[in-house]
């Protein structure tokens, strides 16, 4: 563990990603205290103001403070990320472990379901689910969660296959440990490394998907300050007020990028085969 922390710390880029995400997280948690203005407060006196001393990132067409809306937008991004990734993590990993451990027709069934889900482009699948379920933030989290289930399923299944013939699994069998306990106690902890990496990367994907779907009008409700909705509304004013679209876009990019470099860093730190490289 200490060696892992050291290796992770040595990776400056990943550490930077971690710091940025930590700042975003603090922003999301303490949004009401950090935001200089009420994100819903319209101000007809201050419509489409450029970035300046009063409004650091400017205001939108209703005079709402962009910075405050971005700060509150981080809440919805992280909420969607957390819940949808949580959903796909729990469902996907369970399915993957069951498929990999039991094998046979059960494995075939689960793997084919995942193949079908994989055969659609992710954003398209999420769009279809949203169109069927209707726009709401709950449905959005459900849709994004469903789309990423097969990714976790495949990773878990492949990892289980690589360890299920280990002697310690056979030892547990010889003791008489039940299959459920073997999966939870002996398999799950030993396949965590790739799953942790995928979880981190998926957070980035989920935030991107939320922004993309909201931008297309199939995401969260339009009155919620979300980076995607701000982008959508801001694009109409691009020529007169670039700050309306650029700042939400930048925050989304920064958050997604941070998750990606953090994920890559974790992969390097967790994978012993890459040890001693790049040092």
């Amino acid at each position, binding site marked *: 563990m200490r060696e892992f922390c050291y290796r992770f710390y040595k990776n400056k880029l990943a550490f930077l990603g971690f710091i940025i995400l930590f700042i975003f997280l603090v922003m999301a948690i303490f949004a009401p205290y950090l935001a200089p203005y009420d994100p819903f407060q319209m101000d007809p006196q201050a419509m489409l103001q450029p970035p300046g001393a009063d409004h650091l990132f400017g205001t939108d067409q209703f005079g709402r403070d962009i910075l405050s809306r971005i700060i509150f937008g981080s809440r919805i991004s992280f909420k969607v990320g957390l819940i949808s990734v949580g959903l796909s993590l729990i469902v996907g990993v369970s399915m993957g472990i069951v498929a990999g451990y039991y094998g046979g027709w059960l494995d075939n069934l689960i793997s084919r379901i995942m193949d079908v889900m994989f055969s659609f482009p992710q954003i398209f699948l999420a769009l279809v689910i949203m169109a069927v379920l209707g726009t709401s933030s709950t449905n959005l989290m459900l849709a994004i969660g469903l789309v990423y289930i097969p990714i976790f399923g495949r990773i878990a299944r492949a990892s289980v296959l690589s360890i299920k013939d280990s002697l310690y699994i*056979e*030892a547990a*069998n*010889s*003791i*008489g440990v039940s299959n459920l306990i073997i999966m939870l*106690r*002996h398999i799950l*902890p*030993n396949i965590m490394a790739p799953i942790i990496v995928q979880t981190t990367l998926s957070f980035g994907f989920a935030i991107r998907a939320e922004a993309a779907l909201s931008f297309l009008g199939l995401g969260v409700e339009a009155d919620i300050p979300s980076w995607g909705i701000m982008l959508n509304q801001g694009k109409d004013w691009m020529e007169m007020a670039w700050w309306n679209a650029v700042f939400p876009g930048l925050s989304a990019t920064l958050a997604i990028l941070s998750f990606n470099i953090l994920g890559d860093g974790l992969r390097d730190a967790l994978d012993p085969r890459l040890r001693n490289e790049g040092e």
Partner: protein
Amino acid sequence: MLTTNNNLSSQNKDSKVLLKIRNLKKHFISKKGLFFSKEERVKAVDGLNFNIYRGETLGIVGESGCGKSTTGRLLLRLIKATAGQLEFDGVNLMDLNKKELTAMRHRFQMIFQDPFASLNPRLKIKKIVAEPMLTHQLHKADRADRVKALLEEVGISSSYLNRYPHEFSGGQRQRIGIARALAAEPEFIVADEPVAALDVSIQAQILNLLNKLQAELGLTMLFIAHDLSVVQYISDRIGVMYLGKMVELTNSDQLYQQPLHPYTKALLAAIPVPDPELRTNKNHLAGEVPSPLNPPRGCNFNTRCPAAFAKCREIEPEFKEIKPGHFCACHLYSREEKTNEN
């Protein structure tokens, strides 16, 4: 034939028998080809007949791939036998369903060959040793104390309870594996080459430990190894396996001093014996072990046997008692008998 049957039935009545193995077989089937699939049968274990008596250590020796480890796993029903009978203390293990079998598992345990792979790297050793008790609901009140006592028993300080397996050396890990096997208070232990992965100096320590524990706890043990000196040291009786079959079974002194089967003789000739007079036969085996996919007709050993004659290539020899307590499967010792019977 008659003698064999009589002998086996007399053994059946003996309450000292802990495990009764009759005609036990394990064939692994692999299918080849896409459309016209061809079945290939690997006869890993092909008809074993022997008893294991309470309190004894039965050694099993043989070359790699002769079915030793498969035998060990079959006896614990870690893999399901293709055919045959397997009785543990009067209970037919082949008939049990999964639940009944699980309930019995604490009575027989296994010690594994590779101590680096047999312990879950993510569990602290106290949890590893406690697992059999947890699984079988044993020692609910004093479990923690018992884990300590077990570890002390095998020579691991109880101050290491909270360490992970990778913090220990190979020998120490094997000790932890032994403590785990003992935790459920089993009557029967299969030790699958428990010292093969260890240094020679550590081997002796582990063997002494096993000997000590066996005497203290009255364990019955099946000790699998390919190292003849190791087996001789620890075993009361020794079975020699060749290509999925047992070719000879007798007590260890007998086996080393008066081996009957040509394969046993060849095996013994291959190890350096300090006393030159013990070397009765200096034949070194030629050729390779035939593939278990396609074993030879007649006696399995006829392709490499220096004493093979015509009958060996036609008829499979029976595994029977040649001298009291000395079983062997070889036509060399049944010629007269057979002719007499006929």
